[in-house]
């Protein structure tokens, strides 16, 4: 082995990255996610190749003689739905919605959670009391009931879905970050910064943020699948992305009328949803292990090598 003497130090982030690179489950889920991203990006391309725009109804070729959907075949690779639309192209477009909602909503949730958590932990006192109560209230709200009410009030849409998911997710992050910030607050390096005359912004964003960064990243990866699931639920109930725009959730809802005769309507969007959320969950777990080696599993049950 050649010893490399690099001057640029390997910090906690690089070490975590290297651990991640050696984790086969992480690699597998990262590849799955990458494929999902590619599918989402190439959705218009797919529509062009097949010649089937996502919302176009193919009354003659796409529906059987009795008006039931046609199964997977040469013309429609993954079959058609009840209106004679191409399931493959619709899944590809649905991937765009799912990833967009997943990433944006959890990004927003993590951002708000981190800022609120750090502020509560650093300022303490009355600020902490108010912010903590706020988080308690949000966490105790019944998500589905309120989401249904709000979506019904404002009308379904992509923006409102993202807002709802972020609104109901940030407090979980906020609570964990607050606890961490509270302990970081007592560290000597924070006192050192104060002794140098550092203001609140320096302490919160330069000293505290990198320390809670690991938690934030883990939560971000774990919130993405949860958000995708939320979005699918909302769309399934007709409160997410409004038809005819395809999303995995409303495709599954449509499938409910036909699944006895057209299994592909349930299987393919369901598999896409399950596969992507599972991949994000596995990746999230791996990221957590990589950032916190104490959780490392060195002895695996079953004794496989």
């Amino acid at each position, binding site marked *: 082995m050649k010893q490399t003497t690099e*001057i*640029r*130090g*390997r*910090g*906690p*982030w690089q070490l975590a990255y290297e651990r991640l690179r050696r984790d086969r489950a992480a690699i597998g889920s990262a590849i799955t996610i990458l494929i999902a991203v590619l599918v989402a990006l190439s959705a218009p391309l797919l529509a062009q190749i097949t010649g089937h725009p996502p919302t176009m109804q193919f009354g003659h070729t796409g529906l059987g003689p009795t008006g039931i959907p046609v199964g997977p075949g040469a013309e429609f690779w993954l079959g058609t739905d009840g209106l004679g639309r191409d399931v493959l192209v619709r899944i590809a477009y649905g991937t765009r919605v799912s990833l967009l909602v997943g990433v944006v909503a959890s990004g927003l949730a993590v951002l708000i959670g981190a800022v609120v958590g750090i502020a509560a932990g650093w300022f303490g006192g009355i600020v902490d009391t108010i912010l903590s109560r706020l988080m308690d209230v949000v966490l105790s709200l019944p998500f589905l009931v309120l989401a249904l009410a709000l979506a019904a009030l404002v009308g379904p849409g992509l923006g409102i879905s993202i807002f709802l998911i972020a609104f109901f997710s940030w407090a979980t992050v906020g609570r964990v970050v607050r606890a961490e910030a509270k302990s970081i607050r007592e*560290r*000597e*390096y924070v*006192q*050192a*910064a*104060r*002794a*140098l*005359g*550092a*203001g609140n912004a*320096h302490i919160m964003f*330069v*000293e505290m943020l*990198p*320390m809670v*960064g690991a938690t934030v990243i883990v939560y971000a990866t774990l919130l993405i699948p949860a958000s995708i699931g939320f979005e699918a639920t909302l769309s399934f109930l007709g409160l997410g992305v409004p038809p005819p725009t395809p999303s995995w959730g409303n495709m599954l809802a449509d499938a409910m009328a036909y699944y006895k005769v057209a299994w592909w309507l349930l299987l393919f969007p369901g598999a896409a949803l399950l596969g992507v959320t599972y991949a994000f969950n596995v990746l999230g777990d791996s990221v957590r292990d990589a950032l916190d080696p104490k959780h490392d599993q060195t002895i695996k049950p079953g004794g496989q090598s």
Partner: protein
Amino acid sequence: MSNDVLLQLTGVVKEFTVKVGSGFKRRKRSLQAVAGVDLSLRRGETLGLVGESGCGKSTLARCVMRLFAVDSGRVVFDGDDLTHASNAVLKPYRRRMQMVFQDPYGSLNPRRRVGSIIGDPFRIQGVGSAADRQAKVQELMQLVGLNPEHYNRFPGEFSGGQRQRIGIARAIALRPELIVCDEPVSALDVSIQAQVLNLLADLQKELGLTYLFISHDLSVVRHVSDRVAVMYLGTIVEIAPSEAIYERTRHPYTSALLSAVPRFEADAGTARVESVLSGDPPSPLDPPSGCRFHPRCPRAQDRCRHEVPVLRVGNADDPEHLTACHFPLVDGDAS
């Protein structure tokens, strides 16, 4: 050393509220960690502050740095009263007084690069341009004996002694006048301690620094200090020029502390007061009445239980030597 006073503490008191008891008996009580301290630091000197852990010396250090608000008394730095100064008012003074912390692991943010940590003083105080900073950081690293090429590393990649050098580099970055050293070597191996102490001494000479040097280790303090103050349960019990503290000890507590120090220069034949420092000091929640040392003092008498001894000159020939004791040892009693 001049008689120019850089830092003046008058009657400094710092209280904490602690919760005691459990269940229904749980209640809040206030604890005086620092119970009225008068102390002055002259420009260019090193004042050692010793005492057992929990005597309030680290709290006092944080009061000096105004990391804590002072509950009563005054903190005057170079003629300016900073007792109740706001953070905004304090900011320019923070260039002139800095602190070196005890824990070389806790005082450096593990997720930040060393160059950025040492660059903090410039960044926070808005000194110099971003472009100058790296050069200044590397200069500082050189000055404290670190390889300037390592500015991109993380604290975790340095040894304890090197980390303490990083903390020192950060403290001296803005060329302060006063540095509060809070047990700067007590977390280090003995072999490394001397190196760091020598570095501090060299920097003092080079930069004309004034040190408030806090330690529980009398042998370390003796090595570096011009004057020594001994603290017990939140109060100063004896203060004197370094050699007087060791050679003409007056306070029974100082004497007990000294006898607890393993003596390397074994001067046979000199009887020492037997160490009486068995057990922990009394809780500052319930400080003993009168002289706070009386439950552990071999010379204690009735008067000690009722009357608080004040810090005063015991011998007119020795005006620099102050003791807070009703029945101080006279020269020759101790050694």
